[in-house]
């Protein structure tokens, strides 16, 4: 007896379904193959060693930005290509930074970002120049980074030359408004490229605003004790102490001058390594009225304030390493968009011609001249009651400056 069982799927339906399945099965590899290749970005920071905190902040900012670029659809002109970060640790050592460049070159990076310390940045970008790979400096104060004629190096933030010029000019304005209360200064600097270079510039330029330099004091990293430096400062009796050092020594020097009750019109640092929210919050008495000229976010930018909230919600401090690294990744993404390719020559040309708007920063439109962005500028901040406020330039100021600061009783 024949049974007449009807198939639940009609012949036409079956053929249509099978056809779709076959096309799908065969089609997937094609679609997979059509995915644009990720753009590898070498991100090198000192996440171990004596500036590990600053380095890890830089890495945090860069990876946060990479995630944001990828979540927003990647590089659209490259079919949505994602950025793939390759993370390197320079260990706060020049030779290790260079080794990271070589290693990442083998892995095919399209660009590098780094390196926080100027000596590492100088050597690492030189190594990247051999392969014509763009090297974007997120943090690195020395002007040597961009004055060696290397076509592959780009720095969006101002170097110490520009920061010193701006800092001196703003100090001149402050002093003029205070009837020229400050007539002399002592400069205390760390003995590396950053501190020594900044100190030399300061010493040569302070006389132009009527402030005589009484002494220039260098110190090593690390320095255990600043008591003697405080003694020398007390002996010189300057009106202003200008500091240029990394975080640990910055904090230790500030604490020592506070403990030793050294009376000053201001402690005024340019690119002070330890001037941040954490220092102001944890050492409110020590940091009170300290002034710093530094890279700082634009307090009027909604994007910057939103990022600050996110960073703080992640339990991190919103330090300049974070938002500068974030900005540099954005700059790279923008250049890739314009280049439409990760080809090194095209990418270098796109960076060179970039007019990127650094929304987080108080910068004008980007314009690279010999690798240095002419649109970058620093801001002047003052610590007040455990917080930090911008006091200049005027269009970004959150409060009037307190200068000279009250004396110890």
């Amino acid at each position, binding site marked *: 007896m024949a049974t007449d069982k009807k198939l639940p799927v009609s012949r036409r339906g079956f053929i249509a379904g099978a056809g779709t399945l076959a096309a799908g099965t065969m089609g997937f590899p094609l679609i997979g193959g059509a995915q644009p290749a990720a753009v590898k970005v070498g991100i090198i920071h000192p*996440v*171990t*060693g*004596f*500036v*590990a*905190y*600053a*380095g*890890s902040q830089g890495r945090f900012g860069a990876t946060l930005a990479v995630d944001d670029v990828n979540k927003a659809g990647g590089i659209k002109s490259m079919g949505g290509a994602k950025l793939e970060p390759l993370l390197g640790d320079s260990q706060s050592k020049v030779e290790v930074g260079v080794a990271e460049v070589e290693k990442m070159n083998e892995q095919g990076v399209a660009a590098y970002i780094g390196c926080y310390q100027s000596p590492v940045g100088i050597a690492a970008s030189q190594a990247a120049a051999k392969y014509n790979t763009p090297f974007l400096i997120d943090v690195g104060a020395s002007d040597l980074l961009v004055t060696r004629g290397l076509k592959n190096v780009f720095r969006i933030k101002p170097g110490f030359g520009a920061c010193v010029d701006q800092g001196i000019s703003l100090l001149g304005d402050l002093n003029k408004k205070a009837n020229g209360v400050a007539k002399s200064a002592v400069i205390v600097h760390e*003995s590396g490229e950053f501190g020594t270079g900044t100190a030399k510039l300061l010493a040569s330029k302070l006389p132009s605003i009527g402030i005589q330099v009484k002494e220039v*004091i*260098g*110190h*090593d990293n*690390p*320095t*255990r*004790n600043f*008591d*003697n*430096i*405080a*003694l*020398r400062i*007390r*002996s010189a009796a300057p009106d202003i102490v200008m500091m240029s050092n990394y*975080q*640990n020594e910055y*904090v*230790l020097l500030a*604490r*020592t001058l*506070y*403990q*030793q*009750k050294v009376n000053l019109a201001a402690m005024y640092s340019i690119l002070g390594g*330890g001037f941040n929210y*954490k220092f102001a919050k*944890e*050492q*409110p*008495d*020590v940091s009170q009225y300290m002034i710093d000229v530094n890279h700082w976010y634009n307090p009027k930018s909604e994007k910057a304030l939103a990022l600050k909230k996110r960073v703080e919600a992640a339990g991190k*401090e919103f330090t300049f390493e974070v938002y500068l690294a974030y900005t540099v990744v954005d700059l790279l993404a923008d250049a890739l968009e314009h280049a439409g390719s990760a080809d090194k020559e095209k990418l270098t040309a796109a960076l060179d011609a970039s007019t990127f708007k650094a929304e987080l920063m108080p910068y004008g439109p980007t314009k690279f001249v010999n690798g240095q962005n002419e649109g970058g500028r620093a801001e002047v901040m003052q610590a007040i009651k455990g917080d930090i406020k911008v006091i200049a330039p005027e269009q970004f100021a959150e409060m009037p400056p307190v200068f000279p600061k009250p004396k110890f009783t």
Partner: protein
Amino acid sequence: MLDPQIIIAGVLNGLLAGGIYVLVAVGLTLIYGVLHIINFAHGSLLMLAMYAVFFLWRLAGLDPYVSLPLVTAGAFAVGFVLYRLVIGRFSHGKDENILLITLGVSIVADNLALLFFGGDTQTIDVPYAGDIIQVGAAFLPLPKVISCGAALLICLVLGLFMTRTDTGKAIRAVARERQGARLVGIDVEHVFAVSYGIGIACLGAAACLLMPTFYVTPQSGYAFVLVAFTIVVLGGMGSFLGAAVGGFLIGITESLGGLFLGEQLGQIGISLIFILILLLKPTGLFGSRA
């Protein structure tokens, strides 16, 4: 020419700095005197003790001076257990193995600190941080005066412990003649562990005395350990008295060197002393009595 008042102030600053150096160096010299090894983990263990002080202050609100007995006892326990479970067990009685193990402990401790505590600079804000004692031109920060006094007191207590107690005598016996001590029934392995524990306890005390004026990062222990090595060599390896005298000498040398030659060149004084001692009296100032 510097004002004599400034020079006197420099000497006083050097003495205050020397107090802490003494405490760090005493621990190092004790470990060397008994175990005959240089403890490469000294800086890392000092750093861990400083983190302990920092977290006791931050989480439990304990003042560093109040936490001194707790941290010192904890550091002793860590040193004792570290010797019993790691150093003693894996060294197989060979000094060169102990060197490598302490180096390994140091690398692991540094990286664990970086992993768990981050690389950030941590400081303690105590209400007396800004208090000073004025002596002529010198403004001596109260926490540093307390540190120096406490360091001296701890060294004195340690000296009494070594001369007046059975354990102290056993430690000295083992330091002098290991085999002989074993023959008269002293448990040498136990003495090694106790000595290592006491050496690390000195670091615990030093950490409590340092934190009101210093900072801690995973690297901060090294700032004191290199100078402590110099002090141990200067004073005579294994000599308590040498470590005490050497600590103050190095403190004053560093301070006056900084005043006369600048902070960078001032460190040359320490290196010069190191080289001169090695050339002229390799056993150190009190080495023969060790």
